[in-house]
Structure formats: structure tokens, C-alpha cells
């Protein structure tokens, strides 16, 4: 009886894969779908995004906020994508940005080529 019970529990565990609940998939085109957070980070929040095109080049302004009570360093860079969703320029250099405690600030990205029609923002905390 005990053996049968353990077997059933083991099979159930294997079937569920011990998986942790997956975060909801962001809606296509939403601000969340443009942000790729690399690794766990609790305090940096992407608030709003503005996308414009000036003189043929895509410009992205992103509002970030630090919900922590102390200063946080953030690393970020943009990836610029063409109509087919593939990069149209080489990778950008990672940039370092300090967000003071409870601060809201904007970062800006300018596409390197007029061919860019979409982007991803990569974020990472140390």
C-alpha cells in the first residue's frame, strides 16, 4: 500500500516536472514584451516607454524606477531588430546606470540604422 502510494506520488512529481509556476507571457507589442530581464531583480521597475521616429531613426525613451531604499546599479543595452525580428546592427555595449533610492529616471536609445523597426531592452543588475 505504502509502496503504491509512493509510486503514485513519484509519478505525479515527475509528470509535473517539479516546475515552478511560469510568469505570464506578455502580450505582443506591450511594453513588457520589449524588456528582457536577465536574472532575478526585485527593485528596478520598467514604468513607461515612448517610441518615436526622428529623421528616420527609431528613438526609445524608457522610464525606470528604483523601489529600493538604497541606490542600485543597473546594466542595460538595446537590441535593434528589423521587420523579420532579427538584429539589424551589431550588439551594443553594456551601459552602467545608477538609480538612486526611490528614483525615477529615463534612459534613451537611438537605433543605429533606419532599418530598425523594433527593439528589445536587456536589463541586468549585478
Amino acid at each position, binding site marked *: 500500500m505504502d509502496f503504491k502510494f509512493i509510486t503514485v506520488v513519484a509519478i505525479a512529481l515527475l509528470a509535473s516536472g517539479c516546475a515552478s509556476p511560469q510568469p505570464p507571457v506578455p502580450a505582443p507589442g506591450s511594453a513588457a514584451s520589449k524588456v528582457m530581464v536577465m536574472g532575478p531583480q526585485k527593485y528596478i521597475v520598467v514604468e513607461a516607454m515612448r517610441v518615436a521616429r526622428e529623421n528616420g*531613426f527609431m*528613438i526609445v525613451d524608457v522610464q525606470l524606477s528604483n523601489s529600493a531604499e538604497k541606490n542600485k546599479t543597473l*546594466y542595460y543595452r538595446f537590441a535593434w531588430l528589423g521587420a523579420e525580428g532579427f538584429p539589424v546592427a551589431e*550588439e*551594443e*555595449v*553594456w*551601459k552602467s546606470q545608477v538609480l538612486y533610492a526611490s528614483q525615477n529616471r529615463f534612459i534613451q536609445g*537611438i537605433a*543605429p540604422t533606419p532599418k530598425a523597426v523594433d527593439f528589445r531592452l536587456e536589463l541586468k543588475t549585478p
Partner: protein
Amino acid sequence: MFARFSCIAVIALLASGCADTSPTLGSRYITYGDTKAVETVTNEFGSTDLQMIAESMTRSLAQSGVLRGRPVVQVYDVKNKTSEYIDTRDITNSIKTQLMKTGVARFTSDNNAMQSQIDQLKLQNQSGLYKKSTVAKTGNMIAAKYRIEGSISSIVKRSSDYKDVFYKFSLQLIDVESGLAEWMDEKEIRKTTER
């Protein structure tokens, strides 16, 4: 039977098991790193500074809309006003490369490469070594509409606990005919080391 099987297993393991399948050769202490990583080995001018300056200046200039109709631009050396040795040619080369990839401008020979261009034209036209039909004619070089020039300066402060370096890179685009600066931008970088 068991001894024979064990022997075969050991030989098979020796033959296949220890083979190195990695496509590397040499010390495992040497690795290739990410060329786009934030470099903080020391607080002297580094690869991240060079890349950030080139990226920031190029994007700002390309997006400004000043360079309409792919004008011809001549790049001058960036003046190094810091106390460090910085190969500023690397900065201008990166800016030039990225602007070329953007396709917003064409470039004539840089001021420091102009002599090589003149020497080559003289060699082709005056030496009598070349077939006439293949010789590049003089008087056909395209003059620059704009020139790009800039400078990098630094303020360094030290205390017993801190070393603070503040870099300021300035770049401007000047209309050769009018002498007017049509575009200008700056990039500031602060690097602090706490001992």
C-alpha cells in the same frame, strides 16, 4: 567470463572515455570574453569608454538630421587633453565606421591620411610606371562639405580613499564653407575607485 568482460570494459573506457571533445588548445586560464562587457579593471580610459563614446556620438549625429544627402565629411584627429595616453584615432575610427554603416555620410581621406592620397596620385601621374588608361586623374577628388573635430579632457581627483576621474568628450561638425558648427554633442563619463 567476468574477468574477460571487465578487461574489455576497461579497454573501451580507456580508448574512448578520456578523449577531449572541446575545440580549444592551451591553458584553461585564458578565455575569450565579451567585447561588449562593462570593463572596470582599472579606472583609466578603457574599452567601454571608447565604445560608449563612439556609440553615443554616432547615434546623436546620425539622428540629428544634419547629414542630409550623404555629404562628404573629413575627420580630424581628436585632441587628447587628458593626462593619460589615449589613442584618439581609435575613437574617430569607430565613429567613422559606425557612421559609414549607418549610411548617412561619405568620407574623404582623413587629415592624417591625406599625404598618402597625394603621394599615390603623384606616383600614378608622374612616375610613368602605369598604363595611361588606368591612371587616376588629378583634379577629381571630392572636397569635404563638413569636417568633424573633437577633444577629450579629464579632471582627476584623489584622496586617501578615492580616485575620481571625470572624462568629457566633445565632438562637432563644422561646415567648411561657412565655418559654422552645425552640430555638437558631448559625452560625460565618471569613474570612481574606492580604496
